[in-house]
């Protein structure tokens, strides 16, 4: 099986290790991974801020970059949701691009989604002794309807004790530019999220979107809290997957 990795701008720049871990896990299942160098960003920052002309420019580039890929895997529920939900609509007045947008949307998978639904992984052999909880990112759970998938994967990791996160459906306060634009409101949201994480007693917070994790992790660090923040792929890879 061949897939292309869509690294996302955040992981590319800030969290390359997540990308490496995704590659590692995929390869461990015999998947051939490539990385089209012409990929940039999905355009969501511009789209959500109302700059749809600019978002279309980003989107065209991404569509072109993955034109020859049979499947695209990305370690972000949010970026996958952008492609799947908003790309076709973004080109509603350009039939040719719309068609190409739909084609990309149809072959794009979030990381856990790909493992569970395409690879149908049933035998995670990782071992990761930790006490952890999971943050359901909004765009992944609401946008893509993916809630059980990462939990299913993490549930198979040996010695990983998962706690339910109270108010797990509430946003962490990231929201892209929202975190900077309305930082005072965002602060209250992330603080409530951290309070809820702390009630679980978890040492590790696992998630599927580096945007959320950058927000929660950045706030945790600012507050001097010790909770470690990890992407699902990092847990699987560090746990010595296979």
């Amino acid at each position, binding site marked *: 099986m061949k897939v292309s990795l869509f*690294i996302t701008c955040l*992981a*590319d*720049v*800030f*969290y*390359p*290790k997540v*990308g490496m871990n995704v590659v590692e896990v995929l*390869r461990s299942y015999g998947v*051939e*991974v*490539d*990385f089209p*160098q*012409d*990929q*940039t*960003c999905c*355009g969501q*920052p511009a*789209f959500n*801020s*109302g*700059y*749809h002309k*600019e*978002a279309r*420019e*980003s989107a*065209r*580039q991404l569509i072109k*970059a993955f034109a020859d890929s049979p499947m695209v895997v990305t370690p972000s529920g949010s970026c996958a949701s952008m492609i799947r939900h908003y790309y076709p609509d973004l080109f509603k007045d350009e039939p040719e691009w719309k068609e190409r947008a739909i084609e990309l949307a149809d072959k794009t998978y979030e990381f856990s989604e790909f493992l569970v639904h395409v690879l149908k992984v049933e035998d995670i052999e990782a071992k990761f002794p930790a006490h952890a909880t999971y943050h359901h990112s*909004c765009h992944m759970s*609401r946008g893509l309807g993916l809630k059980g998938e990462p939990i299913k994967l993490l549930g198979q990791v040996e010695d990983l004790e998962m706690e339910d996160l109270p108010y797990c*459906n*509430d*946003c962490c*306060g*990231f*929201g892209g530019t*929202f*975190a*900077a*634009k*309305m*930082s*005072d*409101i*965002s*602060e209250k*949201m*992330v603080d*409530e999220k951290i309070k809820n994480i702390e009630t679980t007693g978890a040492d590790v917070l696992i998630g599927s979107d580096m945007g959320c994790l*950058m*927000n929660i992790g*950045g*706030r945790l*660090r*600012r507050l001097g809290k010790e909770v470690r923040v990890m992407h699902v792929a990092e847990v699987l890879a560090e746990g010595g997957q296979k």
Partner: protein
Amino acid sequence: MSAHPLIFNERVDKALADPILKKALPLTQDRLRGGRINAAEQLGNVEEWRELASQIRSHTIANLDSYLEELVTNVRKNGGHVHFAATSDDAVEIITGIAKEKNAKSVVKSKSMVSEEVHINKHLEDMGIKVVESDLGEYIIQLANETPSHLIAPAIHKTREQVREMFSKVAGRQLSDETTELTAFAREKLRQEFLQADIGISGCNFAVAESGSVVLVSNEGNARLTTTVPKVHIAMMGMERIVPTWNELDMVVSMLTRSATGQKISVYVTGINSPRQSEDSDGPEEFHLVILDNGRSNILGTAYQEALNCIRCGACLNVCPVYRHIGGHAYGGVYSGPIGAVLTPLLGGYEEWLELPYASSLCGACSEACPVKIPLHDLLIEHRKDEVEMGLTPFSEKMAFKGFGFATSHPSVYETAVKLAHSGMGFLAKDGVISKGPGMLGGWTDVRDLPQPAKQSFREWWKKEGKGRNQ
């Protein structure tokens, strides 16, 4: 649309600093959203309900002229009076006109958001008429001289201690802070007001076109008192609050109460079909229906049309993480929460309501909860798009996204930017962390640390090491 002395940021700061809100908002939200979720689970197939409710609302709005015509024809046939108010001023003129003609001394009101839109209380009071709100929550905020902070729980920002103080002042004696004693006092006090009132003003949850009826939903029974005891009843209706027949009423009422509080039905659902009939000896002798546009028609035929499907249940407020922290008043308009952030700029214009569409993390909880499937967070993005296209966003932001568009559509430029990110931001970083950033970044680092971009980006790693390792 509403007189608010503070600008948006100041309103938010005020709300965030309010210890009472901090306690009351999560409590209220948790109760109400929990109720809604339980109700949905009991139904089992809530998505089918939402779908049908949404279809009914969309069909009705798409044929609004026809159904309104049918409604008013029937209201008149039943002996009621109909008034069309294109603007808030028209509505005020109509209602104050009726009050003058009736020589009214006092008016009782049951909860009506439309009446908040036109500030009818103030206009009636200016004429020397006593206006009393009868919904307990509305009565509380009337005594406090405030506005509702939630669609269905208008006084959630008030503590029992504050209520006790205000009620004691009215009572002229010290009341305890027991809910039962406070509500008993309200019952007694408001009952006197009802029995004296010349006019009752209600809202309209739904009008039924086929029979010319106005349907009111309430738990307290004040809507029934308002529409039964005084000799004159005026119902104020937003022009979109209508269903074709009683059969469609079933679905919207079922969704309204389940989504608002989780009740399968409210205590009172009252259909007012006409003024009292010849054999009756209670009920108002006169019935007036005031149908208000006030900017709503400008939403028709636009990308925002679905916003008119709203049935005012407040579910979007109850799940909104932003509302959870800032409450209703920070939004500044009559309608708060996600639906307020969508509607208020449509009814009041961007000049005054520029920031509201940004008061959302776009988490989508609102759209998911909406019983009539309004894509609320998508409509907020639509607003942002319109603001951009109208040139209302800051110059620096425009330039930033212009650059973003260019870089992301030119891979070589993008790659260079990624390559330079680590060293370029190096002067800001200490131990791989940025704690104080300039410009837009400052908003981020005011609250949280930002990692320094990695020394080696993923794409560089791929070129050097990653690529070759396939199989």
